[in-house]
């Protein structure tokens, strides 16, 4: 379960940054990049607290 959560979190980060590269190389529009970033944000904050909280602070 934990490994799935980590994969989803990493996917969330990837969806945050990769679309901007595609905008830079002019493969997608700025609006599409902004929409994908929202999805990436939801994935990150929806999954990362469940595995990051196990770390010793």
């Amino acid at each position: 379960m934990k490994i799935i959560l980590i994969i989803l979190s990493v996917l969330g980060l990837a969806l945050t940054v990769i679309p901007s590269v595609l905008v830079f190389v002019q493969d997608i529009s700025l609006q599409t990049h902004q929409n994908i970033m929202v999805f990436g944000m939801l994935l990150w904050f929806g999954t990362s607290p469940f595995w990051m909280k196990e770390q010793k602070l």
Partner: protein
Amino acid sequence: MQKSILERLDTRLDAIDEYEREPVPDSKRKGWKGFLGMYAGEHTAGTEFVIGPLFVAHGVAAYDLIWGLIVGNILAVLSWAFLCAPVAVKTKLTLYWQMKKICGDKLALIYNIVNALMFCFLAGSMIAVSATAVGLPFGIAMPSLGDWLPTSLGWILTVFLVGAVITVVAILGYDYVARFANIAFPWMILVFIAAALAVLPQLGVTSISDFWTVAQEKIWTGIPAEGQSKFTFWHVMFFAWFANMAMHIGMADMSILRFAEKWQHGFSSATGMFFGHFIAWMASGILTAAAAGAIAPGIIAYNSAGIAGAICVVIAGWTTANPTIYRAGLAFQSVTPDWKRWKVTLFTGLVTSIAACFPALVMKLLDFVALYGLVLMPMGAVIFLDVMVFKKMNLQSNFAEASGSDFNWAAGLTWFITLILCVFINFYMGIEIFFLGLPGWFIAVLLYIGLSIFYQRRQEAAVQSVAG
């Protein structure tokens, strides 16, 4: 009899022990992970969305910006590692309780009130930055560069909403703050990078080779905006070094680093400096250039990264305001030791939210940051000398505690005279506030050593004459 909800809440909140009034026990020390995320989150903040654009407005040239940030940030990390962390690990106390031992209750009281108010104003600027994004979907008119006073009722309500949420998290304690910063940081820094990358084509950058030319001609042009002073390499370097002067040279981060297992954990501040004060400042400069010079953080982030960008501004302000309110709460608590910590933090949050209503805190952020570091710096020099150097010079450490004094005049005069001399240097020698921290620290060091020798020898003579 069954306890009321308020009584149970009071008991539960009071049970969150943060060791404000005693050395941190070894069992509660934290490893690298406790600081890497904390520093990265704290310095990848809403205010970065303001500082980057203000550098652009002040006409920093591209070369000056990059080298100024590299050198200044390295000096800041070294200040944390070699000045603040060794003191924090040795004493395991907060700045405020160490102050009482060195300076006595009355001087510590004056210092703590000044310190707490400065932290409130700083956290207030962060809340205001978050509010510029929260107010966006409601169409609330945002303050502009020339606004110093609250601009509307909607603005005030937005500020208080953001302030309330941040205060509740601060009340829940340091672990909650560190955990939230740990979670938010990786996403936030990627939003900064992604937002900047996505707007580069608008500025004419279509390949990596175009960047340097565009950076020099369209972003950091070296030409200040109308009415703004010109910033050079030295301004950038000293601002990067002293932006957190109160935290490292001023020793405020003793409150955080007292939890460190070893002094080397002071180097963990590098995450904050190079992700936050390098990448984020450059990224926000790019965003403001793409937004035709707009400064409001919520707007420039929304223009480039949409809803995720606006939420990033809110969270970035939140993760910085949290530890700042926590520190301010610690300072107020030493002034009001009978108050419970959560009540003090609640009061601190209220003061901070009131301050945040005034946009001047954001629009004059560079000057305010330089001022608050400068005001608190002399006491940092006092604490460093007292804890790390005095025994080697055969001088009495913790003089107020040892002599039963409630006002250490050597420390008090060091603080006041240093600040007076800095004002003199500023007014009569024309040296800008951004540069005063360096001569000020050496002035404070010389004054505290000289005054301590004078007062301690006088005390010894008085004791001997009574004994004789």
